[in-house]
Structures are given as C-alpha cells and as structure tokens.
C-alpha cells in the first residue's frame, strides 16, 4: 500500500482529505465535499471559467497550459455533444500522484469533472485510468455509483435542471495514450496514435465533439479552487503559477513520497529538507525535475530554483508532471540515459518515423556505448540523432525522448567519454543500493 508522508512545509489543499476515509461518499460530504459543485450549478458557466482563469491554475499533466483558458476555447454552441475527458493514464516515469488521488479522494475527481462539465456545457464526462490501476478503477467506479445514488450525477443534478453522467474507462498499458489526442483514440476503441492538430480537441475532439482533456490532478484541484476562492488559491503560488503541486519525490532520497508544496518551492530545499537529503549521506549528482521527459539538472542549477513552470523553464528544463527523481553520485548517467531511452523506445507508437526510428537507434547506440564498445563519434551521433527528433513528430513523445537525452550528453559528456576505449563502466554493473 502506498505510504503517505508529511512535512511541515506542505500546504495541503488537494491532499487535504488523504488518509481520512474520503473515498466513502458520506465522509467526503462531511469534509465539505460536493459544496463546490453545488455552487457551480448555481453560478453557471461564465462564473466558473472566470474563477479558474483568476486562480492561475495550470495543467498538471506536464505542459502547464492555463486551465481556465483551455475551457474558454470550447464553443458555446456546437452541433455535436461536448465532452470532459479526465486523463488518469498516469504513466510518466517518476510520477505517481494520481495514484494517491484515486486511492484517497476519488470524489474530488468526480466533483471536478462535474464542474468542468458545467463550465463547458457538456453532459458527459469520462474518467480514463491506466490499465495497471485496476484496484483504483474499482474505487472510482464505486465512487461514481455512490454519486449517482445521491443525485449528484444523472438527470437534475443537485436538484437543478442540469444533467451530467460520468463513464469510467480502463486502458490496457500504453504510455502514449497519456497524450491527449491518443487518449481520445484509445477511448474510441482504436490504437493510441496521436491525431494531427489542428483541429484542437476543444473544437473537434472525442467522437468529433468539442472536448476538454485535463489531468486528474488538475480536475481534483478544481473543487478546491471553487471552495477557497480563486484569489486565495492563486495567492498560495507564484505569479502566473497558482496554488500547489503534488511533487513525487523519488530515487536516491531519504524520505521519498508525494508532497504537496506551494508552486515555486525551492528544489534544493525540497530534496534536502522535505525529502531528508540524498540517501545514505551521499552527494547529489543530478536531478530530473518533472518526470523522465524533462532535461536533467545539475546540483549548481538547483541552488535558487523555484519549482514553477516559468522558473524551471528558464533553467532549461520543465516542471512537467511533478516527478522529481533524485540521482546520487554513485549512479552511472550513461546507464540512466539508456534506461530512460529504452522506455521511450518501448512506448513509441511508431506513427512518426523520427520518433520510431530515433528512439530505436538511440537505444542501440546507448546500449553499445554502455557495454564499453562505443567510439568517440557515438557521442556526437547520439546528440545529432536526438536533435533531429526534436519538433518533428505529431505528438510530444519524440521530444520527450530527445530532450532528456540531449541533457545527459551535454551535461555529462565527460562521463560518456569515460566509457570509451573499452573501459568498463566506472560504476557498478547496476545502480547499487545505497549503503545504509
């Protein structure tokens, strides 16, 4: 069972009901649940969207697109039905926050979906969970059934004129399906390959109808924004980066776990104070700040780094999905790069050639290189390959594979060179367990 952690610096908004039995609907209501949905029913679409805009809530899936703005793109009048699609295909290595949301607070996702539906004028919402999350899907399905029984879903929700239904869906193992257009394809019963944009989903989405797709954490945050008020929520974070974020601290850290911290929280402090420092008293070598797709940062780059979308972007990486992976000084970066690219090679859907072939060649090159059969030219070739994948694919998976690779090669070139001339990897065969 995933362990819950706590730290005094946390600001518990999204996680405020974790560990309190809120998966049971009566308990959720006791803790203030569904009040935001009631308010949203009374206030209506325009008010909801304005609140979301004022809250500075940005998409928690990785891109950080302002949520209120995204919702405002949906046309008021549409020929086809509109849909809300909640992305719970959480698959970015380093990220496990939605796991806890579905486990401890499934009703916050349901309530957020209802509010999103009211905002854009949709009558149907889908909650899509990755196939591996079967036990979580069962929790969510039970929660949805309970919400119907209370009259929060179905016809005349909360005694109003509005109707809203929620349909749950399981995936069956595919990282690529976390990309919004591939997610829609999967939900339509097809291979999860991306669609060409434009048209954007807000105009032509699921079943051809206008659709908003939001990460599960974003949706779970929405009821809290309504409950505490947009200004109060925005005030927790930094300018243009409202509220908190669920940071998934993993890897070589003393106290790994999901911590809810204000946007802009210092990364060094997060590792050393919140996470208790590098495990076994070792030195920090590098940190992946936002899931495996985001370029690695060096210890000197995190000194004054506030963890919000803009500051991490300025530092040459991305806040991404909130997966902070801590790497100690006994880790082989070449092996880490190889494991990262192996993932993207496995998950590339094969639709775009630069991604399909690029990830495959990068994996081959890095495998050979790490085994000690690399030549100096390979380092440049790896970089050349990765550079030529950037921006040349329909969806961001190609970039997601190329960006971290470029980071590793550029920032750890010396370590790549140390693998040359038949020299064995200066580190252990595998990444060792820290000596405790």
């Amino acid at each position, binding site marked *: *069972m*995933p*362990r819950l952690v706590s730290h005094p610096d946390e600001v518990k908004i999204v996680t405020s009901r974790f560990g309190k039995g809120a998966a049971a609907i009566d308990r959720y209501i006791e803790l203030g649940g569904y009040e935001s949905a009631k308010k949203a029913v009374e206030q209506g679409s325009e008010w909801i969207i304005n609140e979301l805009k004022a809250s500075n809530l940005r998409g928690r899936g990785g891109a950080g697109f302002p949520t209120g703005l995204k919702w405002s793109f949906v046309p008021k009048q549409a020929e086809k039905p509109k849909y809300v699609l909640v992305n719970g295909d*959480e*698959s*970015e*290595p*380093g*990220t*496990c926050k*939605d*796991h806890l949301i579905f486990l401890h607070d499934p009703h916050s996702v349901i309530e957020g979906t209802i509010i999103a539906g009211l905002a854009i004028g949709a009558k149907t919402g889908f909650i899509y969970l990755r*196939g*591996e*999350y*079967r*036990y979580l899907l069962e929790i969510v399905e039970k929660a949805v059934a309970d919400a119907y029984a209370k009259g929060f879903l179905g016809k005349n929700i909360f005694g109003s004129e509005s109707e809203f239904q929620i*349909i749950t*869906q*399981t*995936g*069956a*193992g*595919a*990282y690529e399906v976390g990309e919004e257009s591939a997610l829609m394809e*999967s*939900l*339509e*019963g*097809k*291979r*999860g390959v991306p669609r060409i944009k434009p048209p954007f989903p807000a105009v032509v989405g699921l*079943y051809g109808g206008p659709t908003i797709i939001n990460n599960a954490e974003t949706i779970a945050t929405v009821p809290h924004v309504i409950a505490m008020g947009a200004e109060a929520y925005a005030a927790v974070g930094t300018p243009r980066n409202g509220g908190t974020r669920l940071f*998934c*601290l*993993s*890897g*070589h850290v003393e106290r*790994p*776990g*999901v911590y809810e911290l204000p946007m802009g929280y210092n990364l060094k402090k997060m590792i050393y104070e919140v996470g208790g420092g590098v495990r076994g008293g070792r030195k920090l070598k590098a940190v*992946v700040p936002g899931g*495996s797709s985001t370029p690695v940062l060096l210890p000197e780059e995190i000194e004054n780094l506030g963890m919000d979308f803009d500051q991490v972007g300025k530092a040459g990486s991305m806040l991404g999905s909130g*997966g902070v*992976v*801590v*790497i*100690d000084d006994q*880790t082989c970066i070449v092996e*880490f790069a190889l*494991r*990262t690219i192996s*993932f993207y090679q*496995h*998950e590339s*859907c094969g639709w775009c050639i630069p991604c399909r072939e690029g990830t495959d060649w990068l994996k081959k090159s890095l495998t050979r290189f790490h085994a000690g059969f690399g030549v100096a030219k390979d380092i440049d070739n790896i970089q050349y390959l990765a550079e030529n994948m950037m921006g040349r694919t329909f969806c961001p998976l190609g970039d997601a594979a190329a960006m971290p690779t470029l980071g590793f090669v550029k920032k750890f070139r010396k370590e790549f060179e140390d693998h040359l001339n038949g020299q064995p990897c200066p580190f252990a065969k*595998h*990444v*060792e*367990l820290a000596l405790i």
Partner: protein
Amino acid sequence: MSPESMTLFSPQLAARFDGLVEKYPVRRSALVPMLLYAQDEVGYLSDAVIDEVAQRIGITPLDVRNVATYYSMLRFRPVGKFNVQVCTNISCMLRGAYDLYERFQEELGIGQKGVTADGVFSLEEVECIGACCWGPAIQINYDFIDELTPEHVPGILIAYRGKAKTEGTVPHA
C-alpha cells in the same frame, strides 16, 4: 448471439459485456476494456476470444487484433496464474529494481516472459507502473507490492504459491 449458448465467457462476464457495449456513445469504445476483462478471465487473448469480442462489437477479428497488439498488457499466449511484473524504470532502478528482478529470475528459474513449469508464475520486466515513490515496486496480476528488497522475494513467492494451492492453478480462474 444468445449469451447462454454461444459465449466463451462466464455468465457474469457475458452479462457485463452486454452492458458494456451499450455504455458508450459508440459500441467500439468498449473494445479495450472488453479485451482486458476477457483476458482476466481466460488468461490470454485466444483466437476464439478475439472472434467473440469482434462479433460483440460488430467489427472484424483483424480490426480487433490491430488494436490489441498496440497495448502492452494484452497478450496472445498464456501466462502463469500469477504474472509477476517487476518495474525497472528509473525511480525503481535507482532503488535496486535490477537486483530485485534478478532475484525473481533466480528463485523462479525463468527469464523475461518465462512461465514456470507448474504454470503458477510468469515473470516480466515492465515499464513504470506508477509507484515511483514507493520503489522498487512490482505488480502480481493487479496487486501492487512496494518498497521491496531482494530479501522479500522468497516470502512473496511462498504466499502466492499458497494462494495457487487453495485456488487451483488454472490461469486466472
């Protein structure tokens, strides 16, 4: 199709599928969940399973196969009653997932995608399962087991072997 006479699936699953195809705006949206649920019961996607799912959705078996081959959880060969999936992706790797995976290989005497002779276990190295903060983590069928060291392996296997004895070794019975 009359569910009682023609279906491969248990009456409960057949009834569930009857509901599932009506649940969405289009029938086809039931395809991926149906394949996964069918696999949970039968153990893998046999030709007969694919044919029946195709018929229920109203598409060709080839079309079903085209979709099914995309998803990594869907398989076309039987596995053990308990499929041990060891995550070795970055967060788990940093905390010793390779050692854990090796220990499972040694204890079970099988390698990647192998099945033990008694049909109780199969083993698979998998990509991120969403348990990064509690790594290294594994899934046995749908059960998550986290914060592991290689020393946990024998105990886990004993527990699941015991389950197999009480439940029988038919895959996913």
